[in-house]
Structures are given as C-alpha cells and as structure tokens.
C-alpha cells in the first residue's frame, strides 16, 4: 500500500507542521466528520480540507468511516485511528533532524497553549479525575526502560478506554466530554537543576 517506507513518517510529521492538518486530525479524533463539517469548523475552504485529507488518506492516516445524508446530498464521513498516528522511534531513524525538530516544537507549543488555557479556565479542578503532574525523575538505564514501558502501557490503556467509550456513546446518546491526554518525558538539560 505504501510504496515508499519514508513517506508515512513524513506524512505524520506533516500533520504537525501544518495547522490545517493538525486541526483535521484533532477534529476527527474527537468524532467522525465530513469535508464540509471540517471546513466549517476550521474555517478554511473546502478545497483545502479535501487536498490535505486526500494526502493523509493516501497513507491511511485518515480512513473512510461511513456516509451521511444531508439536505439530500450524500457525504462521506472520515475518521482517524489514533494508534496509526503515533510516531514510533524507528520511523524517525534516518530522517534528518530538521525534519522533526520544527514539527515537534510546533506540537509542544500547541500542547502548552492547550494546558495553559485549561489552567486559565480552571478545568484542572472541575473534576477530580483531572491530572496535571510534572515530576523530576532520577533514572538509571533500567529506569529509563521501565518508565518508557509505563508510558507505552498508559497510551495503550487510554486508547482502549477511548474505543469502549466511543462505542457506548454511539449507543447511549450521552453528551460526550472532549478531553486531552498528554504524556511528555525527556532528558533534562545537563545543567538543568531547576
């Protein structure tokens, strides 16, 4: 399906490097939508949405979900599999640094903006389940491996809960909660004592 093995990682990074793509993916992760709905939500022309959507569909980052009929017109609905959107370390291998430096910096900025907005809106206090934790960790090599395993397991568990939740929502018609889950972990700068 994917003829060039480098293409998928590049398309994944392109999501982070482009506001429209990041907007499309975010929106589709929160629920299936049509091209027209995406264009309205992101306030960009339909043609632009279609262009980016098609490029992401080429590498299966975005998938067809179903059809909907609106005002007598049949529209395609699209969805995203979050597991396919995760960038694995081995996919980054061999990619020149500048390829991921900028997109990741953009993603970080986006995440900071979202966390700051939630702090501002007092959302971290509105439900007891909300989590906001920053932890300095002294690790040896084994600790690095073990902590990485914890993050991987957490991602998997959260996405499993998400799937079950989506199924229940479809059946119950309950008002859904839009949320963000974030995991950041990195080596502290050498002189970073705080």
């Amino acid at each position, binding site marked *: 399906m994917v003829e060039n093995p480098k293409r998928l990682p590049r398309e994944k990074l392109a999501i982070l490097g482009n506001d429209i793509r990041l907007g499309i993916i975010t929106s589709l992760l929160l629920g299936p939508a049509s091209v027209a709905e995406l264009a309205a939500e992101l306030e960009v022309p339909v043609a632009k949405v279609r262009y980016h959507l098609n490029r992401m569909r080429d590498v299966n980052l975005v998938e067809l979900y179903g059809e909907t009929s609106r005002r007598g017109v049949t529209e395609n609905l699209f969805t995203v599999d979050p597991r396919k959107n995760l960038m694995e370390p081995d996919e980054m291998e061999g990619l020149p640094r500048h390829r991921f430096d900028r997109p990741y910096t953009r993603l970080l900025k986006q995440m900071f903006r*979202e966390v*700051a907005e939630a702090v501002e809106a007092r*959302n971290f206090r509105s439900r007891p*389940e909300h989590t906001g934790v920053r932890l300095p960790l002294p690790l040896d090599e084994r600790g690095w491996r073990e*902590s990485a395993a914890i993050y991987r397991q957490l991602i998997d568990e959260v996405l499993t809960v998400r799937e079950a939740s989506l199924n229940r929502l479809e059946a119950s018609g309950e008002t859904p909660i839009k949320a963000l889950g*974030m995991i950041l972990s990195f080596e502290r700068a*050498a002189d970073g004592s705080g």
Partner: protein
Amino acid sequence: MKAGSEARAVILALSDPFRLALVTRLALGPASAAELAADLDVPVEQVRYQLKRLRAAGIVTIHGEREHRGAVERTFVADGRKLVFRGEELAGLPERELRGHDTELLRIFFREVVEAARTGSLFDEDEHFLVRMPLLLDAQGFREVGERFEAALDRLLEVRTQCLARLEEAGEKPRSATSAFFFFEIPK
C-alpha cells in the same frame, strides 16, 4: 495521600520559584545545603531558611549525615510522592493558592522544556515521549482514563524509588528526566 491541610501546606510551599527549584534539585537526589547553594548560585543562608520551610511542610526530609572538610554535614532529599496531588486532595483549597501553584509549576515546566530543546536533549532519545491524545469520552470513560493516569503515576513513583536506591548503591549519577502527565477536559 495527603490530608487537606497537609496538601495546602505543600501547595503553598511549592508556590515559590526558588523553593520549587530546591525541591526539583532534591527530587533528583540528596544534597547538602552547601551543594544546593552552589548549584543554584545563592547564599547558603537563603537555602537553609527555605529548607526549614520545606521540611515543615514535609516535602523535604533529612537523608543522612556525612563528613565534609572536617565538619559534619547533613544531606536532604525530597519526597517525590509529595509532588503528586490527587484531585480530591485539592478540593476546597482557596482558588488563589491553587492558581499560584499551577502557574509556578507551568512556568518551571515550560523552562525545562525550552532548556532541553535548546541543548538538544529533548528529541534525542528513543525513550522520549511527546504524546497528545484528543479524546472523546463518556463519563465512565473519563473516570477510567483518570484512573489509568493515576495508576501509571504510581508505577512511575515506584520506578523512581527503586532507581534512587540503585543509583545510591552503585554511586552512579542519574540521567535525569522530566516527566509530565496532563489529562483535562478541553475548555468550551
């Protein structure tokens, strides 16, 4: 798990950039007042004064004693569990105090990220994680995701404790990480 008043003392103690820097340093391994003063480039009296306050709040404890240039010196360590709050612990705490704490924490975290990006350690390693998951959840799912984050945090604190013990035994220096978990409802 902290009682409400204890959580409040911790929140207040951590709402100051200098104390937060002290706690960060001590969360990464034991140090003496003199070492802290040298690390953070401040007079040792200032360190001693704030250490007292942090000890009173139960965040910092005495780790041990050792000889240094003929004098006996105490070393201190920070309790990682004190840096982690459960939602219910914070219920009923004054809004202003919580906001001060949140703002300070975000500020130091932002600085750490920027610093790691500047020195190139941010994206270098396979074990590094930068994950953003937009989630559509029902009430049950929201609870469950919160529980998963909490359980992962407990496991992480366990790994941290074991690492500290191994590092001390081996006399090794850690390769320190900053880890952060966020899970929240997107503001409407």
